[in-house]
């Protein structure tokens, strides 16, 4: 490898709490960039708002700290504005599944060619610990003193159901595997969703819990088999890690747009005048 992960780190020191799961995500993503020998100036990372969304500041790449819940539309605009960039969308579970939840099906539907990494800590970290859409039912926090009542979302099952062409789960306690998943997600020609179990040590420390229940996907898991992926996703007592599903055959959106442009009738002075002559 001729590039080092540290070459993708900016001089800004992360302000995350010591032990926050997001450090591992930063390390893994920069390792994935290095393994693909991406040029810094060809990368752009778009985030929403939250502790996890501070991410772009810590990278020596292009980056934008966007609007709460909107990293996907933002990244879509970036990718279509400059398809030659490697665009990565990142954010938290509150950002992505709560306020921004409505954008995921459409990114999947379009198969927009970018990875979306959600640092899922099952809590709102930045606003000091309110329950999030992936908090376990019954979680008692400041905004849920009697226990949260909603059932947690299943992000893997959800994105599979949306038709996402690459769906994976990683864990901050297993950074090596995470870096490899990110590498694969970056190579995937289409929308790649990666849920990272990334504990918030301050408001919802789940390291021990996840260490206990995380396992690699069952041996022989076929990532081309959507049903097998869904079956594995339905398992919640065990949290499987790895690439649940992958379909590299679908055209990514920027490619579809190009084909559409190629097919659209080209305007000349004559064809424009013709419209008025009719």
């Amino acid at each position, binding site marked *: 490898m001729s590039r080092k992960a540290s070459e993708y780190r900016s001089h800004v020191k992360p302000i995350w709490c010591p032990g926050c799961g997001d450090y591992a995500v930063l390390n893994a993503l920069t390792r994935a960039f290095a393994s693909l020998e991406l040029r810094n100036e060809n990368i752009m990372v778009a985030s929403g708002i939250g502790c996890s969304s501070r991410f772009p500041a810590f990278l020596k790449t292009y980056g934008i700290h966007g609007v709460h819940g909107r990293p996907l539309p933002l990244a879509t605009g970036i990718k279509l504005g400059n398809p030659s960039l490697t665009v990565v969308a990142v954010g938290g579970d509150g950002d992505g599944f709560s306020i921004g939840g409505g954008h995921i099906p459409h990114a999947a539907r379009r198969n927009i060619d970018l990875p979306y990494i959600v640092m899922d800590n099952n809590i709102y970290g930045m606003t000091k610990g309110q329950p999030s859409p992936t908090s376990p039912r019954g979680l008692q926090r400041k905004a849920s003193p*009697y226990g949260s009542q909603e059932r947690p979302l299943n992000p893997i099952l959800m994105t599979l159901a949306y038709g996402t062409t690459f769906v994976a789960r990683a864990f901050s306690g297993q950074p090596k595997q995470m870096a490899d998943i990110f590498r694969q997600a970056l190579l995937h020609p289409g929308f790649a969703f990666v849920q990272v179990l990334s504990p918030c040590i301050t408001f919802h420390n789940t390291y021990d819990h996840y260490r206990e229940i995380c396992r690699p996907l069952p041996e022989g898991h076929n990532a081309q088999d959507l049903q097998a992926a869904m079956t594995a996703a339905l398992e919640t007592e065990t949290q499987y890690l790895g690439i649940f599903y992958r379909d590299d055959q679908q055209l990514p959106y920027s490619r579809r747009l190009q084909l559409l442009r190629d097919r659209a009738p080209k305007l000349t002075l004559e064809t424009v005048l013709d419209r008025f002559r009719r």
Partner: protein
Amino acid sequence: MAKELLKGNVAFAEAAVRNGLQAYFGYPITPQSEALEHLSKRMLELDRVFLQAESEVAAINMVYGAACTGVRVMTSTSGPGFSLMTEGLSYIAGSEVPVVVVNMMRGGPGLGNIQPAQADYALMVHTVGHGDFHAIVLAPANIQELIDMVGLAFDLAEKYRTVVYIAGDGSLGQMMESAELPPMKPLPTERPAWATIGAKDREPNAITSLFLGAEPLEAWNLHLQKKLAQIKENEVRWQEYQTEDADLLMVAYGTVGRICTSVMREARKQGLRVGLLRPQTLWPFPAARLNELAGQVRGILVSEMSAGQMLADVERAVAGKCPVAFHGRLGGVFPMVDELLAELKKLDQEVSK
């Protein structure tokens, strides 16, 4: 009731509870989340409705729905969340259901910061979103006034079936002060006749902002405008400090209004005859009184934690009767007493020329 040491966000939330708040929907955002957290506990122990929504768009539409059923309902937020709510607020205004919204303004534009600011003035005062409408906008300057304005907000919202905003700022939400909460009021036993409570023995009600024809929509708008005219007539509120003999006037609201009381005292010590007008309603704006005072004083100094948003309303009210100067601080910075004092002296010299 005795005075207690209360944090602004907890104070307005508890004041709402005691004024008969029946349902609260909100989404966490600094510097206002303590209100949501307080209500998550209080509303449930009192057998009322609390829900943490998935976004401010969801929260305001839940508020809209609950308001249609005739319950006392409220939400609270800060800048970015308020921007998202404007869509729902326009519908709420157009369909005439009473709703109270607290906005603890923070520095903008965009994500800005979580420091206190007053830069949402134009968004709150000059419109409720798309279409022609104004919310009643109350501007408390301290925690006691914040508490008192919660009760007023509900009363006005229900009296006029309209949207009422409480325009606070991050410092008002975050600071602690000694203040007195109202006694617990009993919940209303009946819901208003216009609400969705079943149409037994009467014509069904329609709650809508949809009027397909141009003439019917114009008629509806004229009806709404008539209501706004009534509000303008009856609900203008402000406080004056030492205006009787003033020949210089400061105009400021909320936290800056409070800072200006210190400026005024200091200025008077130094021999300047300064008065203060502090609007308590930003809409309707105390324009008539300001116009009168503009005829009395030699000059006016406006201060805001913004680039000068209320300034436009002041200038319109003054209508050229006297010079109007402005001093604002941006991005979450307070104007300080000595800064404002210097501005007053400058104004004094300019108008003495």
